[in-house]
């Protein structure tokens, strides 16, 4: 019941998207009706022409010529209508798909990170790509076959009735049988298909896991065992696939047999009617072709219905994404943060990703302009969480964060974020040229500025060695650049904007220490007079910080300068000294 209602809602929404193209839609429906009528009328005309060919010497050539001329005209008109209709259907479908994708993408840009972090990216991508595609297929098929199918059935019935009601009855009585046969087989095979797709899923999971970690499998010599596991599933899959495919392939012969019966029935009834003179031979030939045409849409429609259901299920998945609440929009009176001094104040901040698991409780911190704050602590202690909060990727659950005395929730996100320069652990680069990537934050930067930024990040020399220099196109995950080089580009990206506040998350973790040494000067220069937050495992980068926050399980357990903390002999001292232990 609930599923039905959900489906109805989905249909209504799909129609809302289609409504934008109402003119095309109405035209398409009218054309479809015209096509069906003329397609069905042509066999009648052919029958009439055949009736003019009785036997030697009894052929009415002028009547035949007239009829054939009319047929030619109708056929030409039908073909034209059909082409325009198909084109319109394509246009509606692809435009609707484009609109839905556009909306989904815009939603992605607005979704809170809480949602994006919690959902595998592959799943979201599959909604925007695979589901929308599947939906398009269903929609197009629905247009092309469902409507014309129904129209054909009705039209055929009408024409048949107009020729001879008795024979029509034969057709009407026999054809639902093919429907029943198809339905019966579909029901029987459903469980087989389900088993097949489950087994297939099991196999895919194994493939993904093992091929994905092929190197480990080989390192531990587990190939034979994996092959065994694979073949076991493979054998099961073969069995149930065979059953599913074979039984489902019975639909076609089954319905064809029913058609054959209908055809024979029409032949018999028609022939007797012809003998008694109730129908002409041309009428019979026309009936026979109708008998074929009439059953076909039934088969097609039953196929289309499953396809449509599938399409609706896909549509529902996309709408679910589109319906996700966007992040809280900026307040209408939100202020723009301009040239902040960089004074940051955290007061009684409370935050957690999962309401049942406390993470940050009552966090207080006061950072003066230009201060260098280092955050240290074991993995999972909440260091990256602080960044999420400072950048307002997540909103605090309680307390407040203020920049220059302004609660960040009263500022526009754009102005807050562009005033931070951020280098993250993951070295994400945009697909595009090296130049575009460095100018990511300032697309209007001049060539000199870009090169200067690259030089400052020690990226210039390796960029020059790339095949196309600054015009080298890099993709998101290509092997051309090493992890370290990618990180240098990320640094250059920030160097170009140089906002008043900085966030560096493990910024140097995959750059070797020698390169790091070289860019440390640049970093020091960059941090001059800027409030900076640095998260790093490498204690040497933290030693020169003005303030060290030692975090453990979401809490700041110690704060102070390096020497103070060492003297204190607490957790920081333990962390620091452990690197010298043998």
């Amino acid at each position: 019941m609930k599923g039905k209602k959900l489906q109805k809602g989905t249909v209504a929404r799909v129609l809302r998207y289609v409504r934008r193209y109402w003119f095309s839609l109405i035209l398409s429906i009218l054309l479809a009706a015209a096509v069906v009528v003329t397609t069905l009328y042509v066999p009648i005309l052919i029958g009439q022409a055949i009736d003019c060919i009785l036997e030697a010497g009894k052929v009415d050539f002028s009547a035949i010529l007239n009829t054939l001329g009319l047929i030619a005209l109708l056929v030409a008109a039908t073909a034209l209508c059909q082409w325009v209709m198909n084109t319109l259907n394509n246009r509606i479908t692809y435009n609707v798909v484009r609109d839905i994708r556009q909306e989904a993408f815009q939603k992605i840009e607005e979704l809170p990170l809480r949602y994006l972090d919690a959902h595998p990216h592959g799943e979201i991508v599959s909604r925007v790509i695979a589901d929308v595609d599947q939906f398009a297929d269903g929609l197009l098929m629905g247009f092309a076959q469902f409507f014309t199918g129904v129209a054909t059935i009705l039209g055929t019935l009408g024409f048949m009735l107009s020729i001879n009601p008795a024979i029509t009855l034969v057709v009407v009585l026999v054809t639902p049988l093919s429907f029943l046969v198809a339905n019966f087989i579909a029901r029987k095979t459903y469980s087989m298909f389900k088993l097949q797709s489950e087994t297939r899923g099991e196999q895919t999971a194994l493939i993904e896991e093992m091929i994905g970690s092929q190197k480990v499998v080989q390192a531990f010599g587990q190939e034979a065992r994996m092959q065994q596991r694979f073949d076991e599933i493979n054998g099961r899959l073969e069995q149930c696939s065979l059953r599913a495919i074979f039984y489902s392939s019975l639909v076609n012969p089954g319905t064809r047999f029913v058609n054959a019966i209908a055809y024979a029935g029409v032949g018999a009834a028609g022939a007797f009617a012809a003998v008694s003179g109730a129908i002409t031979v041309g009428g019979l030939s026309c009936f026979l072709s109708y008998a074929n045409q009439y059953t076909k849409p039934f088969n097609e429609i039953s196929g289309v219905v499953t396809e449509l259901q599938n399409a609706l299920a896909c549509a529902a998945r996309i709408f679910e994404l589109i319906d996700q609440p966007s992040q809280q929009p900026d307040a209408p009176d939100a202020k723009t943060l301009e040239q902040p001094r960089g004074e940051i104040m955290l007061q009684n901040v409370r935050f957690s990703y999962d309401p049942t698991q406390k993470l940050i409780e009552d966090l207080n911190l006061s950072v003066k302009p230009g201060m260098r704050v280092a955050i240290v602590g074991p993995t999972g202690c909440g260091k990256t969480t602080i960044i999420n909060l400072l950048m307002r990727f997540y909103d605090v659950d309680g307390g407040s964060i203020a920049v220059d005395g302004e609660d960040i929730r009263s500022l526009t996100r754009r102005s807050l974020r562009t005033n931070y320069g951020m280098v993250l652990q993951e070295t994400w680069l945009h697909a595009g040229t090296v130049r575009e990537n460095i100018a990511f934050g300032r697309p209007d930067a001049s060539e000199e500025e870009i090169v200067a930024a690259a030089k400052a990040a020690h990226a210039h020399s390796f960029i020059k060695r790339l095949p196309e220099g600054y015009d080298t196109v890099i993709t998101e995950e290509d092997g051309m650049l090493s992890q370290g080089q990618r990180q240098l580009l990320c640094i250059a990206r920030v160097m170009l904007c140089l906002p008043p506040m900085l966030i560096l998350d493990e910024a140097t973790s995959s750059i070797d220490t020698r390169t790091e040494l070289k860019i440390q000067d640049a970093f020091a220069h960059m941090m001059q007079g800027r409030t900076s937050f640095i998260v790093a495992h490498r204690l040497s980068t933290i030693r020169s910080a003005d303030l060290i926050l030692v975090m453990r399980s979401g809490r700041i357990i110690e704060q102070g300068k390096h020497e103070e903390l060492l003297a204190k002999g607490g957790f920081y001292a333990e962390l620091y000294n452990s690197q010298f232990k043998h």
Partner: protein
Amino acid sequence: MKKLALYLKEYRKECVLGPLFKMLEASFELFVPLVVASIIDVGIANGDGGYILRMCGLLVLLGAVGLVSSVTAQYFAAKAAVGFAAKLKSALFAHIQSLSYTEIDTLGTSTMITRMTSDVNQVQSGVNLVLRLFLRSPFVVLGAMVMAFTIDARIALIFAAAIIALSIVVFGIMLISIPLYKKVQNRLDGVLGATRSNLTGVRVIRAFAREPQEIGAFTEKNEALAKTQRFVGRISALMNPLTYVLINAAIIWLIWAGAVRVDTGLLTQGEVVALYNYMSQILVELIKLANLIITITKSAACANRIAGVFEIRSSAVNGSRTEVAPDVETVRFDNVNLRYHGAAGDSLTGIDFTAKRGDTIGVIGGTGSGKSSLVNLIPRFYDATGGRVLVDGVDVREYDLHALREKIGVVPQHAVLFKGTIRENIRWGKPDASDQEIMQALETAQAMDVLRAKPQGLDTLIEQGGRNLSGGQRQRLTIARALVRKPEILILDDSASALDYATDARLRQAIRKTDATVFIVSQRASSIMYADKIIVLDDGVAVGTGTHEQLMQSCAVYQEIYYSQFPKEERA
């Protein structure tokens, strides 16, 4: 493509019988118009009710025989297709498992997964469809023409003309639209790329407030896709109307020519009806054939991709030595060079050193300096392109790969665990390890607290990829997995990076107590400074080999690394 046919060989019987029965079905169908013609010309003309009934009974019988042949054909086709796919998949899996790291690197994981899943499925449905339809459709088309010839040879020429014209239209449209569909696929890949990129880079995009530009770029890609789709749609929408026009033109011609010949007594009315029916049959089959060819082209593309994987041969030829006694010189590198496949320069040049039993060897250097490459040569994940790598005095290429890798415990850079319990995961290292051995390995790997945090202990279920564990927990379990086999050689490839300094130190201490020869790859000087021998790599060259003290005296690169992590005023 031909290589794949190998897996179909076992189903030769099915491959012949399937299409044969399908043809049988088709030939029964071809008789139908003839029967109808005789109903008209004999039954109706003579008013013979008994004859009409007999003929209609014959129609039902033809249908029944057709049903039986068709079901038989479907069975054989399904059996051959499914069996073929299963064999192919199993062989493909085995083949991929036999590839060495070099080939795995060039192929890429996601490629291999698509080959094994969607590509094989596509080939399976292609084979199934081919066995069912490929003979049937041309047979019906040609059969209808032959039948037309038996009725009236002159008129049958119309059929020949119609078939040629139809083929030109159908295949012409396909030839034009197939490359266009490829273009659509490329555009779709672009849209997909933009979506994925925006998800992975969401933080950066928002940090730089680039959302509007990203939406703009997406709109462009999205519109380009829709435009191409609409264009292809317009062309492929021609298919139905054009075939419709052609067939009807042929019918008009047929009726006119038929009328002329009936008038002179060369043809009967019933025969004209039969000819007309044959023409309709041709239309139906041609449309099926066109769809079939689209499926076949897709399947053929997939088959080629799969064949491509089979063509990749493992570059590592297996040796034969299985039993090699431990030697005092556990590992020796004899002037080793390594150049990766397709790379422009060497990744390792002239590496030469010896590791004695029980030694700890530290390998340090910058990103891309060749640290992992060096240790990957020991279990022969890659083959040296120059010089020799010896384990227990024997060249690794002479070893049976299994026997060689049995001696070695590897902890890879990426901590990969598998779906299953902790016990099962640790047993990867030693299939018959007892719980006691497992506990001991966990203890050495400093992983006991991972276990203590889990109420189900060793039976704790690990999700695929170890998602339900933290990075540090995963790393320690992978270390335990390597330790449980009590390897002669233990390789830690930067595998303590997620551990804090304290745990890292305890781990190193515990490992020292085992009698394995240990290789530690690290960027942290603190992790390797107490090793018996430290190899300092710079751009693939060993610029220094020795103890910490020696290197602090002699090796500039080492000093630089060291002082970048321990500034001078501290302990140096």
